[in-house]
């Protein structure tokens, strides 16, 4: 179950409800609800199960037009923003025509794409809120004639405690092309970065083990055996299992922070660009994109010595899979500054609330 925040015309939260991820909970109230709990109910509107405040919302007329305005929202942590638009969004098979929105956080801002959830619902869009930071505002794109009928802010699932391993680790072994992890006793054959530095295997999970990083399970690479253990991004196409997912979580690190476009391929033949943003692995360097620290080893390996003053980092980041369709592959960017050690698909509904950071 997820928490949906129903918002008013100013995108201020006016009500909160628990929903199934399979439903869309969207409602712009004409006025703030009174002291009584609103009589929310699901209605079947335009083929969607929509949570409405009876009777008859969302309205036929848009609450506001999309004119490129900045809309402040109730500050909070969210995973998704759902918008029900009055006009169908363009739906290029390659996402080339997707409109851009700007997400404003307390101390950061990111562009994201506004695109339809699926082709059956061309008026419903969802926007990923990738950072686990306080979101404060969103700048809508200028869309000729289109307005917002309804909107919902969806919070991250709450930790379910015992529930675990709902994610589906992706096998990256066939694509690994870089030795970034070595035993401290015999460094020298690897080169995570251009200076031949590597992570010490002793400070990381066992090769091939299943490890949870904040509730998300990852299959740790076959590290420490002089075999490639990570992917230096060179445009590889990674096969996925063809199931539906909301996020692709990754264990990653970069040589100086970088960001680039990763392309998600869906079962219907369409593909969509998404942002992959990864911070620097270098010691004494904070995460830039809101990633969670997955591992910080006690030292860094140099070809001729072990330096205990240089503890490098591996980050947990996530990439949104905006379309609610079966994902069959991702094509990584050709950006050799970015390295991936592991990846896991997570379907929030199936996760049962276990995907809290």
């Amino acid at each position, binding site marked *: 179950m997820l928490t949906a925040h129903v918002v008013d015309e100013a995108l201020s939260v006016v009500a909160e409800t628990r929903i199934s991820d399979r439903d869309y909970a969207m409602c712009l109230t004409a006025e703030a609800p009174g002291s009584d709990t609103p009589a929310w109910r699901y209605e079947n509107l335009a083929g969607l199960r929509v949570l409405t405040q009876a009777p008859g919302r969302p309205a036929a007329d848009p609450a506001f037009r999309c004119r490129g305005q900045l809309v402040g929202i109730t500050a909070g942590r969210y995973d998704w923003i759902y918008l029900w638009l009055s006009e169908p969004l363009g739906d290029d098979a390659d996402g080339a025509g997707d409109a851009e929105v700007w997400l404003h956080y307390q101390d950061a801002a990111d562009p994201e794409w506004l695109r339809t959830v699926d082709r059956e619902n061309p008026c419903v869009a969802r926007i990923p809120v990738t950072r686990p930071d306080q979101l404060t505002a969103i700048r809508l794109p200028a869309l000729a004639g289109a307005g917002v009928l309804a909107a919902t802010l969806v919070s991250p699932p709450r930790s379910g405690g015992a529930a675990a391993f709902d994610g589906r680790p992706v096998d990256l072994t066939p694509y690994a092309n870089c030795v970034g992890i070595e035993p401290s006793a015999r460094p020298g054959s690897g080169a995570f970065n251009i200076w031949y530095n590597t992570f010490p295997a002793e400070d990381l999970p066992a090769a091939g083990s299943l490890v949870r990083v904040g509730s998300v399970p990852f299959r740790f690479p076959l590290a420490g055996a002089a075999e490639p253990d990570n992917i230096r991004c060179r445009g590889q196409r990674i096969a996925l299992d063809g199931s539906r997912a909301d996020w692709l979580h990754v264990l990653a690190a970069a040589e*100086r*922070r970088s960001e680039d476009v990763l392309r998600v391929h869906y079962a219907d033949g369409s593909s969509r660009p998404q942002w992959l943003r990864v911070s620097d692995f270098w010691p*004494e360097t904070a995460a830039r994109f809101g990633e969670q620290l997955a591992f910080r080893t006690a030292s860094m390996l140099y070809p001729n010595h072990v330096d205990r003053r240089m503890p490098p980092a591996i980050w947990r980041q996530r990439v949104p899979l905006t379309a609610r369709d079966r994902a069959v592959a991702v094509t990584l960017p050709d950006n050799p500054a970015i390295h991936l050690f592991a990846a896991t698909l997570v379907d929030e509904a199936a996760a049962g609330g276990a995907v809290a950071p």
Partner: protein
Amino acid sequence: MRVELDGIRYWRHDLTGCLHITMAALLGYHGLDPLEVLGAGWGFFYDPRELRREEYYFPCRQKSLLGSLAPYHGVSSRWHQPEDAEAGWREVREAVASGRPVGVAVDNFQLPFRPAYQDVHTNHMITVFGFDDERGEALVTDPVPPRFTGPLDISVLTRARTSPNPIAGERDLFFTANPIANRWLDIEPPTQVPEFDRDFLREVIAANLRGYREGGDDGDDGSGTDPATYQGLAGERRFLDDIADKLAAGRTEAADEGFVVAGPVLATTGLHADWLARAGRIFGDARLIEAARAVERVAHHWSAFRIAVATAREAPPDAAGPLRTRAATLVADHDRALDLLDRALG
């Protein structure tokens, strides 16, 4: 005699290197905010005739290195090249004794606090802010990880400053084969610091935009031959294409050239993005914050470019195609960032 200058503060930005970090220490000593001073200038200029294999290389439009780094603040710096090691320490000591911390060029191979100690040669820069004659020590600071601030035996510092900085191993990349030669620099602080207000902001952004888009921006003299220098957005595009062309022709040295030039471009772009973001937050200007983020995206392209050329040594022609693609998207995103800055100016 012992001197330890107060007011040396830690400062580091993750996309910069020892040049910006040392300048930040020297500016901070004079009470200046490093981000405000070093983050204002943003442009593209490169003269291949002036390329130097140094971590602190910066393609200078002006005679002064700091003046080129911080063109809106009336600051300057001066390089000194002493005759020998003895003069090298005497001059640095005199400067510090007179109340001026200085930057000194060093070879990390000789510095025990650097991970490259006795391993890799490179042309690095640190700050000297004190000395103890009796102990025979200099007081130095180096915020580049692993950060170090403390005493360093003068004989060790001298070895680092007199190193021929040779290419002695396969990892002596990019910043070697350029003797250190005891060089050191000091800075001249501004007589008046501009207020970080809206007027200054507009002036700086407008000047940066002009630098990218106007004024014979590619140094083209109309002779029909390629101009010697690369300037502005057009020059940036030509530089990127030329590096790809050279790699396509199998010229390995283009990897070094691309890597060394990309370093300061990455640093200034990343720093300028943070400068704009700070201004956007101070003035509550969401458009400016978005423009800042677009500039940051350009910096992230340079992160990618830098590693792409650094890894091109083994098979330079294979790197050419991906670099052309990178060049196209980098320049397109750069152009868009300039548009967003234009829009933010209103």
